[in-house]
């Protein structure tokens, strides 16, 4: 259907189970290419994973119709959510396997009750690895000469996916920075403020706008936008940008120094104060400004001192000597921001989360505890209500409200199953409440935990794609209850008639001890080969599958063929196959017969050529072991004996001793009795065969008795 594109991830089709589904179901348009109503029938079939194939069958009533219908494939979970490309998504999917598997094996090797206090360190290692996968670096190349006027450096394209991951890392996994969550949030906003720009004004958007004008501005300090941009950046703590901008102030230029000394001094004083701002954090990345303090008392002392310096500057008499009106007002305004003037902060920020950060920085730098943080967030949201809800907002609110169910619902609603499956590791590291909710087995979920359910869902999504199905088993094996069941179903749906797929699937079976599944696959492949006339390959794979039923059936077909006559030229065609059938010790007993039979035929053919007693002796050995073998089919006895007439009537001397002759006579007797039964299968032998053999045996017996 034209005009329907799902650009926003909210419209992406998702069939991941949620906790709250009170709303009515979503309706998704099924696009097709040229059908006209009415449809005669719509029929469905699940393909691998979450893929649904829909056949839209055109009604015959529509006469002008060109086609009979269309088959549309619908992937029921939109993996990328519109944000990353297929290739990037696959990179993330493949890259996260190792960290995930490593964390699971660490978890398994540790008793859950004695899980060490530093478990979070493992989780952090995992989180950092995953996070690095989400980085979507743009290869901009190294810039040798930095543009002094470039305010915002863009090293990578920020994604909501990475933003959400980092948020959860901050609040759940990183126990080390628990005391400096506001500072980490500040860094987070610096990276991701741009994500909110799409829907409403932000500090980031303002700076981007100003950046564009920067090159054309002659006297920068005369432009009110210059001061506005700096105030906004200062409010959200992007100190380096503010100082950089301050240094662009006209009073720094050499020709200005003589007459604008005081003005320049004031600008520099503010710049120094900004760059000396005390920060409650262990360290700062290079290029970022402020002075770090690790402990609260040290930080408080520094903070008080810094504030008093600002107050002192604010009351300084130098302001009277500053002639440049915009500079004076602009700098004063910035001092007010640093002093925590609520109305100014509210004026220079746009999004509630920007206001939130500015409160942390300048009004309540000592805020700790999620409850206080949550109250403050609500206050900020009240002051700056937003009409358009970004998907990260729900997540932030859920985290601050300590409502793990909301976090879970937001994760699965806004992001693909990859996210929730991997983020659960962070959530469970965060709190016991989360651990109970996520790991408890629930009868309403069919006896599994939410964690397992999410892994199953993710594995199913992985298996929808030909490129990623082979990593699904790693997630399934981490599911204690239903993982193996789903893995079996997944493997049963593999197109194993393709050799590569077969080998890959067998390998997965071997790793997971799924012998039955793997022999079933080999059986499918073997039968496929049999039906396609590739008999050797068919027998080989049926042997691998240890499929006695089919092998016996094939052996029977071979008997029918080889039993006809010894001189049959086409025996050669079958010889190789018999060879193959006989090599495996595990195969059916009846196949062993074929092997001996082949030996017998070979030596018999030799006997036909020459007349040495040695060769004939060998042939007799084969004949006897053939007749002794219990698996030699009865209907085979007569043709074999009839073929051996020459041996039985050997001129030089009797080749069979008394015992051997008795054995053959017994067999002949058995055969005569069996002939009377209704289910006797008559072999294609001449009518005189039985009598000729009996006569030959009797003669041989007489000669043998005489000889002994």
């Amino acid at each position, binding site marked *: *259907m034209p005009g*329907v594109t799902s650009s926003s991830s909210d419209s992406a*089709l998702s*069939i991941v*189970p*949620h*906790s*709250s*589904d009170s709303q009515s*179901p979503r*309706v*998704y*348009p*099924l*696009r097709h290419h040229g059908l006209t*109503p009415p*449809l005669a*029938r*719509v*029929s*469905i079939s*699940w*393909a*691998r994973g979450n893929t649904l*194939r829909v*056949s839209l*069958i*055109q009604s*015959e009533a529509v006469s002008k119709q060109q*086609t009979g219908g*269309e*088959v*549309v*494939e*619908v992937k*029921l979970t939109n993996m990328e959510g519109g944000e990353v490309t297929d290739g990037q998504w696959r990179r993330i999917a493949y890259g996260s396997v190792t960290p995930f598997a490593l964390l699971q094996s660490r978890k398994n090797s540790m008793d859950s009750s004695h899980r060490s206090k530093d478990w979070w360190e493992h989780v952090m290692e995992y989180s950092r690895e995953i996070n690095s996968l989400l980085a979507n670096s743009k290869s901009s190349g190294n810039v040798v000469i930095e543009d002094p006027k470039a305010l915002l450096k863009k090293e990578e394209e920020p994604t909501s996916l990475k933003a959400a991951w980092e948020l959860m890392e901050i609040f759940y996994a990183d126990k080390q920075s628990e005391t400096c969550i506001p500072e980490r949030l500040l860094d987070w906003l610096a990276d991701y403020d741009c994500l909110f720009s799409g829907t409403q004004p932000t500090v980031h958007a303002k700076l981007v706008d100003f950046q564009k004008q920067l090159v054309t501005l002659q006297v920068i300090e005369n432009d009110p936008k210059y001061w506005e941009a700096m105030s906004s950046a200062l409010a959200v703590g992007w100190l380096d940008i503010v100082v950089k901008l301050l240094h662009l102030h006209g009073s720094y230029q050499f020709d200005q120094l003589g007459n604008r000394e005081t003005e320049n001094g004031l600008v520099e004083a503010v710049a120094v104060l900004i760059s000396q701002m005390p920060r409650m954090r262990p360290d700062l990345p290079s290029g970022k400004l402020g002075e770090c303090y690790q402990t609260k008392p040290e930080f408080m002392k520094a903070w008080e001192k810094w504030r008093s310096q600002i107050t002192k500057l604010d009351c300084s008499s130098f302001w009277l000597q500053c002639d440049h009106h915009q500079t004076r007002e602009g700098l004063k305004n910035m001092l007010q921001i640093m002093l925590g003037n609520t109305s100014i902060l509210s004026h220079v920020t746009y999004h509630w989360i920007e206001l939130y950060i500015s409160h942390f920085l300048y009004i309540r730098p000592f805020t700790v505890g999620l409850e206080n943080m949550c109250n403050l967030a609500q206050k900020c949201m009240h002051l700056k209500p937003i009409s358009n809800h970004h998907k990260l907002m729900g997540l932030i609110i859920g985290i601050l409200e300590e409502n793990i169910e909301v976090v879970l619902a937001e994760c699965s609603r806004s992001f693909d199953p990859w996210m929730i499956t991997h983020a659960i590791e962070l959530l469970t590291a965060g709190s016991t409440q989360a651990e109970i909710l996520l790991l408890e087995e629930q009868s*309403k*979920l*069919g*006896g599994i935990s*939410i964690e397992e359910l999410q892994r*199953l869902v993710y594995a*199913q999504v992985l298996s929808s794609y030909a*490129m990623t199905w082979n990593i699904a088993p790693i997630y399934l094996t981490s599911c204690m209850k*239903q993982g193996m069941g789903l893995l*079996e*179903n997944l493997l049963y*749906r*593999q*197109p194993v*008639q*393709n050799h*590569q797929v077969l080998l890959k699937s067998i390998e997965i079976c071997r790793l997971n001890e799924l012998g*039955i599944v793997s022999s079933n696959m080999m*059986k499918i492949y073997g*039968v496929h080969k*049999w*039906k*396609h006339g590739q008999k050797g390959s068919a027998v080989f794979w049926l042997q691998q599958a240890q499929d006695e039923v089919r092998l016996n*059936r094939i052996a029977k077909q071979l008997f029918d063929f080889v039993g006809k006559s010894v001189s049959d030229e086409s025996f050669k065609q079958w010889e190789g196959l018999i060879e193959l059938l006989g090599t495996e010790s595990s195969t059916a007993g009846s196949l062993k017969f074929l092997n001996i039979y082949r030996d017998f035929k070979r030596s018999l053919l030799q006997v036909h050529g020459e007349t040495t007693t040695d060769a004939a002796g060998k042939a007799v050995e084969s004949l006897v072991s053939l007749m002794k073998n219990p698996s030699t089919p009865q209907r085979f006895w007569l043709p074999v004996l009839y073929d051996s007439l020459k041996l039985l009537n050997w001129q030089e001397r009797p080749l069979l001793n008394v015992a051997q002759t008795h054995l053959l006579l017994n067999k002949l007797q058995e055969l005569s009795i069996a002939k009377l039964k209704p289910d006797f299968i008559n072999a294609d032998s001449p009518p005189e065969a039985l009598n000729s053999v009996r006569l030959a045996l009797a003669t041989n017996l007489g000669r043998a008795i005489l000889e002994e």
Partner: protein
Amino acid sequence: MDKLILTLDKGTTCTAWNYSGHRLAAGSTDGTVAIYDSTDPVSSTFNCTSRFKVQESSILKVVWIPPEYGDAVACIATDGTLSLWEEVAQDTEALHWKLCKCFERNTSQVLDIQFGDSRTSLKLVAAYSDGQVKIFELLDPLELEKWQVQAEFQNIIDLVSKFGNASCSSASISWNPQRGELQQSSFILGFSSNSPLLNSSKVWEFDQDHQRWLPVAELASPEDKSDQVFAVAWAPNIGRPYELIAVATNKGIAIWHLGSNPDSNGRLSTEKVAVLSGHDGEVQQMEWDMSGMTLASTGSDGMVKLWQSNLNGVWHEQAILAPVFPEQ
């Protein structure tokens, strides 16, 4: 999200995908079946590779045989005949589709069939318009020509009553998809007919000791027993302690739990856990995904609906896929 993967021939009446979703068989009004194949396992482009004439009358339904028995389809035609076609290339012949078996019929028509893959032998259940159920058994695993009737019965719990002149318009069969050594063969069957006792869907299980099929459960509330059944679907079970079965009637789609331990009468416990609104008009088809978590259904309203149980264990309609036509 959605992608066109193949265009069907004019006159197509029904389609069926093989076990791996790499081959499609499509029946048509002129009695031919067309086979579409993808070039390799990664690709999802399909081309018609062969076409063969099955019947003079239109094809009603096509069902693939389990892959352990090769590439073959069973076809039901609107005249009620049932035939089995296989793709082979024996010895020197080229690959072609040949008729293996034309199942004998009396006056009644075949309404639905399903293959059940038990470890010992391949079974085929066929439901007929006179309310009879026949179970055919394959005698030779490599030859699809040889079948014998293993059992024949009616879809009624009370084995004493018999119906002479029942008339059924449709039937729906679904085997328990579970594989494995220990699993008993079982399937569910429901009819849409004029005789109330036949209609309700019953679970039939093969009693190994007595070598006969027994009804072990009836999936209908006492007041709904005479309701006509449009479709049934037995969910794959990857580890639940109970079986999950969907039954569609004119009252909607019911989701049933079926216990695994029989009581003293040999009956399995049943519980109706949800009745979902279903479709505007008849439900035509229901299919569970490979985890048994999502049920997809189609109806005469032309919609595809997806049903799921949420984290609170409540069944609900998760999504609707609606074909959209440009404004006329």
